[in-house]
């Protein structure tokens, strides 16, 4: 039987709009404007979850994003389910379902609750200490630990929602739309600053918007009334953009902030479709005004975690803002005046307040006098020593506090109650401030960390800056605004504030009980079940750094990041270790302030947009001809073209044979192409390649090898001299961008005197590679006018020609060892050219081949692939390519490194060929090579870099790097595999046509 605890109509709750929702399978009703938390409380549901470690029943503690206990699973079992959501932040809508987490079978009866009785056996560091040995048992432990780890359940199906990113630039960003934020934004915008005001809630106004106390007046009005008018005026201000439901998650250097804007989470399922759910705002602000407010602190006492124990400010907000009372017999427990405001709020609505327990000796403020007049019993110098009630608080026990606050004396009084509002003072929300790199200092009087040294243009105003009273807030806000915006006057000059609040506070981090500490449960971190005992244990065990204590006890490591209890943890450490809070410092506040969904982080970069990819102009043909593709860098390259259900092996064998026997055709468009021009172009190539370039005739091509300054092979490719001062360089597909960057670097920084211009033209040209003994005949059919004789157009030369109206550049170069041509045309004609070649080649059985066959054919010739046969530790000498290293040139990139003692060692790994003694066995690429199987430990000489079954040689071939390999020709080695040893022989890496006769076939 639920009863409705709605006490008054609130202007923020639309009682004409009744909403039904389900919690743990049961249907409840709330109103438009309710959060899940306020609606549950209105239905007298306090028990909403179980704690992480001890599975203790937990209720709603707060009314905001700092909530540690009431974290729920939203829409369980659906593809929109979301774990670990704070019930205090969920706006209810028709059809919302939510359930408790970390309990089985139900939140009412949770088997895991047994942990609570076993809790003496689960001290801080329990897992570290217990599951250490025997080491072999870890696999068994792991299963159970994983099973009990985590709170909610991740969705298992695809997220149906859309997410988005947006960049925002503004003059002034104001974070938090409480009284300070509103006034700051208003004055910034009025002074022509382009201003953005964001707040995580759906309503502006912060806590002042429900501040209806008669004791505080702004311009002779109740604060809420006055602020409402200010908010009304915001609508007409230009230059001001307001975003609600927008939570700043991170504040990085140079005023770069990330915020999550929630767009559809408060809507019914039918209204969510085809809309952006959440948007990540990437904000770059010239100035940032932090007005993030303050979080009320709890008090740390024995059994301070029962459902029904809440922050006093939350009790007030539920009553004033949502019109919900949290209990029928209320008690407050406080160390300052703010609990009296909450008590009066309830009293004025006719709700029973049983007592206020105040650890101070007295307070003389008007509000306390007013409470006294109401007849509410106040216990001065008393502390709560215990509470009772398993699933809901039913009483508190109080005792007199000793003068020094370290013990309790006298008789125990029990007060029956179902709600305890605790007020431990206020902690400025400095999380974002410190994320920006700015530094805090400890204010000994207020017992808070406040902003001290700013690293960027920013100010902290209102209670996040350490001002808690409205008059202080307005006064300090005014001069900070004038200072930071550089303005003479503001609206705030004319605001009159009357207040009656006292700052008097008695701060005791850990309140004593009549029982010894070890027998009590004073929770510091509610979500992770870390108690004051755990912290003290950590100190006894020798932990000193606050960062270490945090990790050992898990204090502050839950999804709430310890927003409530961190200050107490610091206080208890300081008290116990006898150091000052200011010296102790704080743990690091890291982004995000509140959890972000993965969807928000990735935005639209999902599926095919996850990473960009590039397709060649001939891509459609490859797709139409059922090619399989492989990723090469960002490119999608045709890998092989299976016909009639061939396997990859079968297709590659067929393609390889055809390319050597008649004709093959390859899409080589992805090769990097850099256009090099300028009067020093030849000199430039001399400096970047190992070989000489000055004497290369116009119209000729040359293969070049590029090193890093450390002498290691970096890239290779053929470069063609198109004119006196004009070259076209080709690079590897994957290396194109890096090669261009490297060349630009040298030109700009080391050799600015060279007259050289580099332009990437990779995407401008499509390249068709025709190869095989019939390639010449095919080209002749396409370009009948071109003289293809070896005399006119020899190997390693270049011609310009036209195919119809299409200009093309043709290089007679070969990566397969066959007679072949690379035809380059404007990318737009790529597919057309390809189809022409296929058509012309039909009578020669022209066979399209992909990258796999290309790799096989070049391996038969012993041509290296940079990045496959090299790994950044291979010099040209290691590759046995001494022929390409110019001895005459004074210098080129990497030359000096080839004469370092290390690169000159004889026993470096060198590239060799490998043949298996059984020619049918194909080695695995990456397999290790050894010479002595009986050694222990066995010495690894090197590894296989490329390995194929060659259909043209009808045997297996491999390239490998082997220590001292160049002197091992003919030597027998072994490739040990999991269940056999393969016998191999070191061979010449050129397996096919060693004399290069086929180039001119």
């Amino acid at each position, binding site marked *: 039987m639920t009863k409705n605890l709605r006490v008054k109509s609130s202007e923020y709750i639309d009682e004409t709009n009744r909403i039904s929702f389900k919690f743990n399978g049961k249907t409840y009703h709330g109103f438009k404007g309710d959060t899940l938390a306020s609606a549950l409380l209105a239905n007298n549901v306090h028990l909403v979850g179980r704690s992480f470690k001890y599975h203790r029943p937990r209720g709603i503690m707060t009314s905001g994003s700092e909530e540690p206990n009431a974290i729920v699973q939203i829409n369980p079992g659906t593809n929109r389910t979301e774990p670990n959501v704070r019930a205090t932040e969920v706006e209810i809508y028709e059809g919302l379902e939510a359930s408790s987490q970390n309990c089985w079978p139900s939140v009412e009866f949770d088997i895991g609750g047994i942990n609570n009785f076993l809790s003496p056996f689960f001290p801080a560091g329990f897992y570290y200490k217990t599951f250490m040995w025997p080491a072999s048992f870890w696999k068994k432990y792991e299963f159970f630990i994983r099973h009990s780890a985590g709170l909610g359940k991740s969705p298992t199906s695809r997220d149906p929602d859309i997410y988005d990113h947006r960049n925002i630039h503004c003059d002034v960003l104001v974070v938090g739309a409480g009284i300070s934020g509103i006034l700051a934004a208003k004055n910034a915008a009025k002074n022509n600053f382009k201003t953005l005001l964001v707040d995580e809630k759906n309503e502006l106004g912060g806590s002042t918007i429900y501040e209806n106390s008669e004791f505080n007046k702004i311009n002779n009005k109740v604060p809420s009334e006055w602020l409402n008018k200010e908010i009304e005026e915001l609508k007409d201000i230009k230059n001001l953009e307001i975003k609600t439901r927008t939570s700043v998650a991170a504040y990085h250097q140079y005023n*770069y902030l990330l915020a999550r804007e929630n767009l559809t989470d408060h809507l019914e399922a039918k209204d969510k479709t085809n809309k952006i759910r959440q948007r990540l705002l990437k904000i*770059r602000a010239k100035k940032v005004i932090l007005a993030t407010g303050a979080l009320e602190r709890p008090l740390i006492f024995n059994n301070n975690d029962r459902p029904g124990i809440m922050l006093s400010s939350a009790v007030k907000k539920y009553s004033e803002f949502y019109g919900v009372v949290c209990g029928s017999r209320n008690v407050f427990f406080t160390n300052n005046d703010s609990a009296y405001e909450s008590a009066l709020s309830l009293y004025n609505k006719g709700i029973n307040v049983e007592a206020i327990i105040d650890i101070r000796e007295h307070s003389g403020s008007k509000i306390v006098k007013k409470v006294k007049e109401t007849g509410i019993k106040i216990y001065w110098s008393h502390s709560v020593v215990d509470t009772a009630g398993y699933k809901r608080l039913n009483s508190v026990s109080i005792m007199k506090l000793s003068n020094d606050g370290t013990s309790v004396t006298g008789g125990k009084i029990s007060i029956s109650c179902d709600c305890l509002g605790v007020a431990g003072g206020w902690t400025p929300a400095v999380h974002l401030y410190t994320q920006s790199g700015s530094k805090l200092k400890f204010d000994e009087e207020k017992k808070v960390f406040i902003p001290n040294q700013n690293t960027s243009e920013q100010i902290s105003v209102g209670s996040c800056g350490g001002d808690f009273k409205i008059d202080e807030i307005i006064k300090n806000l005014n001069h900070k605004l004038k200072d930071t915006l550089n303005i003479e006057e503001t609206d705030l000059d004319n605001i009159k504030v009357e207040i009656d609040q006292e700052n008097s506070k008695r701060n005791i981090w850990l309140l004593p009980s009549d029982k010894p500490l070890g027998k009590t449960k004073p929770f510091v971190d509610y979500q992770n079940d870390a108690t004051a005992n755990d912290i003290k244990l950590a100190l006894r065990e020798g932990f000193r750094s606050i960062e270490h204590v945090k990790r050992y006890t898990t204090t502050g490591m839950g999804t709430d990041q310890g927003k409530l209890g961190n200050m107490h943890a610091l206080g208890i450490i300081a008290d116990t270790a006898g150091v000052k809070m200011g010296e102790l410092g704080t743990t690091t506040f890291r982004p995000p302030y509140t959890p972000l969904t993965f969807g928000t982080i990735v935005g639209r970069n999902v599926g095919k947009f996850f990473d960009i990819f590039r397709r060649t102009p001939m891509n459609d043909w490859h797709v139409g001809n059922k090619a399989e593709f492989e990723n090469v860098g960002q490119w999608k390259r045709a890998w092989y073209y299976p016909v009639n259900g061939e396997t990859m092996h079968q297709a590659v064998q067929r393609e390889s044979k055809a390319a050597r026997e008649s004709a093959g055709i390859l899409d080589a468009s992805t090769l990097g192409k850099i256009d090099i021009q300028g009067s020093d172009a030849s000199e430039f190539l001399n400096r970047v390649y190992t070989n000489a370039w000055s004497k290369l005739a116009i119209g000729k091509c040359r293969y070049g090898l590029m090193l890093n300054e450390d002498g290691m092979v970096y890239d290779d490719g053929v470069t063609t001299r198109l004119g006196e001062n004009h070259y076209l360089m080709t690079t590897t597909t994957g290396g194109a961008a890096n090669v261009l*960057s490297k060349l630009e*670097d040298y030109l*700009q920084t080391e050799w*600015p005197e060279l007259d050289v211009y580099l332009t990437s033209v990779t995407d401008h040209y499509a390249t068709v590679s025709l190869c095989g003994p019939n390639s010449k005949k095919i080209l002749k059919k396409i370009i009948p006018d071109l003289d293809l004789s070896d005399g006119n157009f020899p190997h390693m030369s270049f011609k310009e020609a036209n195919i119809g109206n299409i200009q093309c550049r043709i290089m007679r170069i070969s990566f397969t060892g066959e007679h072949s041509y690379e035809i380059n045309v404007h990318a737009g004609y790529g597919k057309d050219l390809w189809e022409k070649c296929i058509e012309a080649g039909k009578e020669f059985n022209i066979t399209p081949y992909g990258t796999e066959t290309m790799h096989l054919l070049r391996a038969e010739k012993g041509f290296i692939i940079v990045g496959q046969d090299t790994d950044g530790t291979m010099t040209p000498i290691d590759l046995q390519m001494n022929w390409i290293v110019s001895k005459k040139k004074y*210098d080129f990139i990497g030359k*000096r490194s080839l004469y*370092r003692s290390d690169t000159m060692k004889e026993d470096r790994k060198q590239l060799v060929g490998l043949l298996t003694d059984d020619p049918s066995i194909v080695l695995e690429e990456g397999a290790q090579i050894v010479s002595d199987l009986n050694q222990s430990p066995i010495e690894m000489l090197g590894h296989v870099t490329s390995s194929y079954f060659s259909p043209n040689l009808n045997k297996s071939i491999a390239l490998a790097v082997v220590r001292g390999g160049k002197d091992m020709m003919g030597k027998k080695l072994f490739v040990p595999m999991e269940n056999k040893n393969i016998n191999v022989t070191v061979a010449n890496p050129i397996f096919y046509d060693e004399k290069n006769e086929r180039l001119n076939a």
Partner: protein
Amino acid sequence: MFLINCPYCGERDQQEFKAGGEAHIERPKQPTELSDDEWAEYLFMRKNIKGVQFERWNHTHGCRKWFNMVRDTSNDEIKAIYKMGEKPPTR
């Protein structure tokens, strides 16, 4: 995320740039004259300062120009930016 004032383009977001290591390490004009140790000094040895450091940066997703930056690595404050070939500011 830095806001970097490219000397050619103006203020741009850090994601347009790439850091290129320590600045003012000139490639020796006559490498062959150097001993292994001297060459190794140029090739491998880099400072890693906590504090004010001179660095090379490249506006890769912009004008593609290289320039120099003086940055305090302890708080990421950018103290100066100047073009390649220009004299570094004195502290």
